[in-house]
Structures are given as structure tokens and as C-alpha cells.
């Protein structure tokens, strides 16, 4: 059994004039110690997916259907009290912007110790010792002093280190990192990412890495999901997808990456832009931007087909696979 299994998760935003579908039938799973990448343009629903796992979507968002099984228990159906025992303790989160994530009027120490105390029967002194220990692990200089400092006295990189330390405080099974480095200076992005990966490996923590940086995903994750307009359109082992993307959108994303060895080439751009939630096109949501789109794509939402170890939601891919199969049958 997978550590985390999300089945047909539907998330909606209740607004005037009906619900907006932010996530549509999302399914994936995460094993112990696995590293899973979640990619897509901004607005694809990556962050909503991350927050909905801990049932933390802000109003007016709500989980409209599906289940989130963590060790077999459905988080979507849990009471607040039960959920709180899992949040931070078993599943920790790292937010995008370290400048906004720490409470400006509480010291680093307070914010670390309260997390420990919320989940364990532990004295302040012992909690402080653990906090100190974790700060050392994330290589913060003079950690003892940091505990009594306020967030504004630390740089952005420092703060994200603190947040990583907080995520590791209670030895969680899963860390969900929502674009952990985008808000940082380019020069320290790699450093922080390396630190995060190293610590996850050390503590055998499963990592769900949300990013729009395909490069990072291809280097560090075993499996990946590609999201578009609230749907997963392709998922499977990272290597297979990067080497041989099936969905036209994923192909576009990969082609848009600057390639080594081909200096001077103009970068590819997927034409058009992600639709906003209130005007998602009928049929396959990607069809207005897809060069292979047919009439079928405009009318019908594609089901998943399996190609190798990869699941893809695309009519054209299905057609290709079916044709291949027919050929194989004919030849055999």
C-alpha cells in the first residue's frame, strides 16, 4: 500500500454564479521515501493540490469529492482535530515565500517550539534542544542566537532554511514543498534545493516537489505529474516522460527548456496562455493551444491511456497507440 494515495480528488471554489472547478479527478500516489515532482504553468492548480492534501484550502475552496488516503485513512473525511495531529507532524509543508511564511511578531524559537509542543508532550527546554539541533542540520550559523531572533532579522535564504528545519522537526513521513526556491535569489536556489534533498534522503522522507522548473524535476525526482487547468494530463516515471513525452503539452514544456549543446537556438514557446478557471474550454482543456487538436478534442474530455509506464490523457496519443496495436496484431 502506498503511503499517500489520492483518488479522484475534486476541489471547487464556491463563488457567486456557481462553482469553479480547481481540481478535476486528480489521482496519484506517493511511496515511502519517494520523490515526486508536480509541474505545470502557474494557475494549473499545483498549489491547490498541495494545500488540499492537508485539507488547508482557504475559503471559498472546498473538497467536493474523492479521497486522500494517508496510511489508509481518508484525510478528506477527517475531523479538524484528527487532521491537526497529522499536519506538521506526519505531513509537513514548505511554502513558497519565506518572507511571508514566518509570523513577523514571534521569534524563530517560539515558532519552532510551538510546533513541537503541539504534537508531543515535551518541556520547553527539551523542545528548544531539538529546535537547536535541527537548525544545525540546516547549516544555520550560530543557531543558538537565531532562536531568539525575529524573522525580519534573517535573510530570505536563512528563513527558508528555518522553514526546512521546522518541516523536519517532527520527523514527518512526507514533506510537501510548494515551489520552495522560487522566491529566493537565483544564487542560493541550488544550495537550498540541495539541502532539502539531502535532508529528505537522510531522514527517509517522501518529498512532493511542486515547481514549474522541469530541469529540477528531471534531476531529482523518480516520478512526476504534469498538470494543466486542474487536471493531471500525464504522469509516470520522470525519466520516461522527459525522454519521450507523450502529451503535446508536456512536449511543449520540454521543448521550451534551454538545451545544452544548442546555443543560439530560439527557445520554443507554447502558443497561447493557460485558461482561467471560469472559462475552461470544453473537451480537452488544452485543445485551443494544441497543434494536433481535432474535432473530437473540442467535444470530449480524453480518458487516460497507458503507454509503457506512463498514463496520458490525450485523444491523439490514444489513436497512435491503438494504431500501433492494430499493426502489431496484423503482423503477429
Amino acid at each position, binding site marked *: 500500500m502506498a503511503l499517500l494515495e489520492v483518488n479522484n480528488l475534486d476541489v471547487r471554489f464556491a463563488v457567486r454564479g456557481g462553482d469553479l472547478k480547481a481540481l478535476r479527478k486528480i489521482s496519484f500516489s506517493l511511496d515511502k521515501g519517494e520523490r515526486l515532482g508536480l509541474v505545470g504553468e502557474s494557475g494549473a492548480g499545483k498549489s491547490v493540490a498541495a494545500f488540499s492534501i492537508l485539507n*488547508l484550502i482557504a475559503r471559498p475552496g472546498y473538497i467536493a469529492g474523492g479521497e486522500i488516503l494517508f496510511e489508509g485513512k481518508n484525510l478528506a473525511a477527517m475531523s479538524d482535530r484528527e487532521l491537526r495531529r497529522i*499536519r506538521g507532524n506526519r505531513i509537513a509543508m514548505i*511554502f513558497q515565500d519565506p518572507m*511571508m511564511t514566518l*509570523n513577523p511578531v*514571534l521569534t524563530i524559537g517560539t515558532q519552532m517550539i510551538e510546533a513541537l509542543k503541539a504534537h508531543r508532550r515535551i518541556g520547553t527546554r527539551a523542545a528548544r534542544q531539538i529546535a537547536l539541533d535541527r537548525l544545525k542540520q540546516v547549516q544555520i550559523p550560530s543557531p543558538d542566537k537565531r532562536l531568539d531572533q525575529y524573522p*525580519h532579522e534573517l535573510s530570505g535564504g536563512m528563513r527558508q532554511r528555518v522553514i526546512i528545519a521546522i518541516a523536519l522537526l517532527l520527523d514527518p513521513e512526507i514533506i510537501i514543498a510548494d515551489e520552495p526556491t522560487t522566491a529566493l535569489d537565483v544564487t542560493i536556489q541550488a544550495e537550498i534545493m540541495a539541502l532539502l534533498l539531502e535532508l529528505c534522503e537522510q531522514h527517509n522522507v517522501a518529498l512532493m516537489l511542486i515547481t514549474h522548473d522541469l530541469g529540477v524535476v528531471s534531476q531529482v525526482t523518480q516520478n512526476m505529474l504534469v498538470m494543466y487547468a486542474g487536471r493531471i494530463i500525464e504522469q509516470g516515471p520522470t525519466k520516461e516522460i522527459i525522454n519521450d513525452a507523450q502529451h503535446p503539452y508536456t512536449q511543449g514544456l520540454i521543448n521550451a527548456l534551454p538545451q545544452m549543446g544548442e546555443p543560439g537556438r530560439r527557445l520554443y514557446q507554447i502558443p497561447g496562455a493557460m485558461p482561467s478557471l471560469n472559462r475552461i474550454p470544453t473537451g480537452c482543456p488544452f485543445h485551443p493551444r494544441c497543434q494536433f487538436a481535432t474535432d473530437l478534442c473540442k467535444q470530449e474530455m480524453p480518458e487516460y491511456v497507458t503507454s509503457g509506464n506512463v498514463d496520458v490523457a490525450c485523444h491523439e496519443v490514444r489513436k497512435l497507440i491503438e494504431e500501433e496495436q492494430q499493426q502489431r496484431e496484423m503482423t503477429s
Partner: protein
Amino acid sequence: MFVISVISFAIQDGLGDPLRQMVGQSVSDAEREQLREDLGLNDPVIVQYARFAANAVQGDLANSYFYGEPTLDVIMDHLPATLELVIAASLMIVCLSIPIGVYAAIRPRAWLSKFFMGVSTVGISIPVFLTAIVLIQLFSIGVTVDWFPADTGWGTWLNDLLSTDGGMPSYGRGQDLTHLFGTWDSNFFSWDGLLHLMLPAVSLASIMLPLFIRLIRAEMMEVLQSDYIRYAQAKGISPWRINFLHALKNTMLPVITVGGVQIGIMVAYTILTETVFQWPGVGLMFLEAITRSDIPLIVAYLMVVGLIFVITNTVVDLVYGLVNPTVKLTGKKA
């Protein structure tokens, strides 16, 4: 302070002739002129101001024409009453506005929150003297309701429910005062004193209360949207701690700034409350001074009120610096 002193002094010129009030009609012109000379009222304006400023620096704001004693003493006699009124009203505001504002922010859809917000909108529209009058009618004079048939059980019950006994004191500070020090007699230490304090303090609090509730609610709702609140939730912290530590501490920062200024402004409103309740504080004294053209007293009052504003602002800055770690006490942002 300098600005205030100039303004206060300028008022002297406008406020008419104090002699008419002081001596009446029976005094001869010569005597009158002599008195003017004694009081220095015939000197040029600049000379008068210089004398005024020099004395003011030494804490001497001249004698009151009416009381015939130094104005500062007169004010000191009346100031404790006003301060107690302001303190009592501020306490009520703090004790009520924070829980109500926080509640309305946490549960914006609950009918109780809507009720509070509705009441505070209406509250803003009621002038303070009217609140005071209604309070007097209800709790001091009493209201007898006989709209419902008295021969039925529910009718009697409703009549009793809606009727009030009255009897609350609504005039002055009462007799049972506790002497603290100097001119300070306190209402806080006896039942009778507290009863006398009740209605004036409630009506004074009623001006600012709706304002504070709205302010706290708006700020708190904004804070609750912020990332660090969601992060605290993601850490599995209890809602109680999130609301009352993480959110409230951030909410109070702007509230302290605005609130300090408002408490200063409340001093101005004591003029109205004290008039209605005949509360012997500086507000009532000021109004009487105006009707008596007691210029030195008016000027001294303005100076003292100006000083109170300066003090409250300084205290607010200090408190803000203590609560907000991002502000160094020197006033620079770190």
C-alpha cells in the same frame, strides 16, 4: 506644544471682555480701567504673549478670573474625575471590542457577528449625548411598559421584561469617594462610586466602541488571510493559539496606533458626557469657563489637553515599539 500655545493665546483676543463677567454693571469706568491695567489687558499683544509664554514654561498659567486661584490648580481639581471617566471607558472598550471584533472576524457568517456589525453601524450614527439621555431614561428614571395585557401571564412577563427600574445615579460623582493622593479622589473603590461612574463611562465608551469593533474586525480578517496563518495551520497548531497569538498579535499593531489617537480624542468627548451627567471633570469646567469667558482657564485647559495628546502619542509609540519587533525604539525600521 508651541502651536497649541499660540492658538490658545490667539483665542484670548477673540473671546470678548472678561471684565463684564467679573465685575458686573455697577462699577465705574475708572475702576474698570484700573482693573484692566492691573490684569495687563491693555498691553500690546506681543507683550501679553511673551508674558504668557514665560509664565507657562514655569507652569504658571495665570489665575482663573472666576475661581480666583491659579488655573492649573483648578484643572488639577477637576482632572482626576475626567481621567477616571476616560480610564473606565477605555477599559470597557478594550474588554468588549477585542472579543467581539475577533469573533466577528473568525466567524463572519454567524448571525451573532452580523448582529454585532449591524449594532455597531447603528451605534456610529447615535450622537453620544443621545446615548447618554437614553441611558438616563432607561436606568436612572426607569421605563414602565404596559403594552401587553397585564391580565395574562405572558403579558405581565413581557411588561416586566421590557420595563426597567431606574434608580442608577446619573448626576455627579456621588459622595463615597476614596482619597488617593493630591487632588485625586477615586470612584473606583466603592460600590456607590462605581455606580456613579457606570452610566457616564458607558455612554463615553459607546462612541468609540463601534469604531474599534469595526477596526479590529477588518484588520483581523486581513491578517487571517496571510500566509503565516496558513503556515501555522499547516504546522498543526491549535486554532485557539493561531487566533489569539498568531493573528491577534499582528492585528493589534495597527489597532494600537489608531486606538491611542482615539483615546486622546475621547478627552474631547468628555465635554459632552460630563455636561449630560454633571460630572465634575475638566470637560464640564471648560464649558462653564466658556460661558463665563474665563479666558485663562480656557487657555490652560487647551494647554493641558494638548499635553495629554502629546503624552498619549508618546506612550502609543513606546507601546508600539515594544509590541512590534520590526520597529526599533529609535523609530528606525530595521
